[in-house]
């Protein structure tokens, strides 16, 4: 009886295993790299019905975020302004009111406009947490977390894009180490704020008023430490008694 299997089949099983292994590794590497909000969401830059330029309004003109996003301090949802808020500056006879870019605004509000429809402007929402995650804007901005922490430097974006991943591990990074995010309450909407902008003496006086300790003692205990976000954040965390929840029910009801 001759050989049923020719000689080249001796290593076939091993070769198939090697090939499958290589293929599997590539698939896993692909999933690891791209099946995450870091890939699927970061950089999302949709076109809006009106090409609203944040770098002009919030950057060059220095308007406060809350001029338009009026209810961010009171509501879980940071609102998109109603057309009336745009109209305050871009209504008839005011700034750039004839610009063709503002067509959807005039269709929504200008009753004398020939193409008036009354339909609201359909802005495209970029930042979406899953519907089972209940993020609350107001608790964050009222406890020293700046807009810039989650949205990036919007005041330098001509077209706003998704800057952070907003994944769950990303949330937890900050909930476990809140000192890397906390800043004085009057600088929440100042997206260019740096720890160096804070006057140490004023800061210690503020802390002393909050905690009842003496400003000199606080200052002495920090001697030799670097003046940075972590130092300021740790002080504020203590003064405000900030304990970000890490249990499931914090965000998932």
């Amino acid at each position, binding site marked *: 009886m001759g050989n049923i299997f020719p000689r080249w089949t001796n290593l076939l099983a091993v070769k198939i295993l090697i090939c499958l292994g290589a293929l599997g590794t590539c698939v896993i590497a692909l999933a690891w790299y791209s099946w995450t909000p870091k890939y699927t*969401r970061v*950089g999302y*830059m949709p076109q809006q019905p009106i090409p609203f330029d944040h770098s002009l309004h919030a950057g060059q*003109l220095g308007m*406060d975020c809350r001029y338009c996003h009026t209810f961010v301090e009171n509501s879980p*949802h940071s609102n998109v302004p109603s057309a009336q*808020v745009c109209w305050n*500056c871009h209504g008839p006879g005011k700034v750039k009111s004839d610009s063709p870019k503002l067509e959807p605004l005039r269709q929504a509000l200008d009753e004398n406009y020939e193409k008036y429809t009354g339909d609201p402007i359909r802005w495209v929402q970029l930042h979406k947490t899953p*519907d*089972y995650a209940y993020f609350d804007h107001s608790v964050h901005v009222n406890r020293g977390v700046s807009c810039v922490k989650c949205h990036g430097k919007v005041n330098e974006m001509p077209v706003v894009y998704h800057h952070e991943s907003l994944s769950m591990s990303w949330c937890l990074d900050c909930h476990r180490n809140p000192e890397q995010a906390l800043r004085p309450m009057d600088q929440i909407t100042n997206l260019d704020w740096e720890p160096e902008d804070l006057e140490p003496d004023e800061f210690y006086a503020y802390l002393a008023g909050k905690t009842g300790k003496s400003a000199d003692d606080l200052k002495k205990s920090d001697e030799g430490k670097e003046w940075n976000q972590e130092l300021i954040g740790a002080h504020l965390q203590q003064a405000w008694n900030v304990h970000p929840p890490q249990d499931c029910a914090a965000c998932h009801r």
Partner: protein
Amino acid sequence: MRWFFLILAIAVVATVYALGPRGEKFSETPFELFPDMDRQYKQKYQKPSQFFEDGKGARKPVAGTVPIGFKFPHAGNEGDLSSDLDYSAGDDYLNTGLFGDFYGQGFPETLEIDEDFLARGKERYQITCTPCHGDSGNGQGIVAKYWAIPPSANLIDERVSAMPEGQIFWTITHGKGLMGPYNGVVSVRDRWAIVAYVQALQAGSK
């Protein structure tokens, strides 16, 4: 096997080229593999509704019903705010700045005018009023710097300084001339706080 690895290499290069690195800008709706529970069929903030005929997601209370916690402006609580987030309701002085057909003088009795109230007014003024009226109230805000439109009112000149409190409140609420109404975005309490701060600016300019 050589062929396999050659094809795999080509496939890897093609995929990496097609997908691009993390953080690249794109404008298509982001890809979601399992959107089931991520996108639930429920009413969300500022979203339209397919359920109601008019397509509006934000609903008014059904006629004849009162939401829990809501105070009627006419039911014996004139001059009172149910929260700091009342936007306008009654026809009393607190909500209108008017006594009958006349602008009222002085602040409503229910408001306590203290340092915190002024600080609140300053903050709200700098958010809402500064773009046109300027930080100091002189009408030379950023708008006046860039665009040749009719100038904003100078809040610290004699004309506005002579205005009764109720008139400033009424103007913030309803707007005047080119200025739009701000009753939808600045709460009643904050409007009075802004009035107080504007008067502080006037006092400071003398």
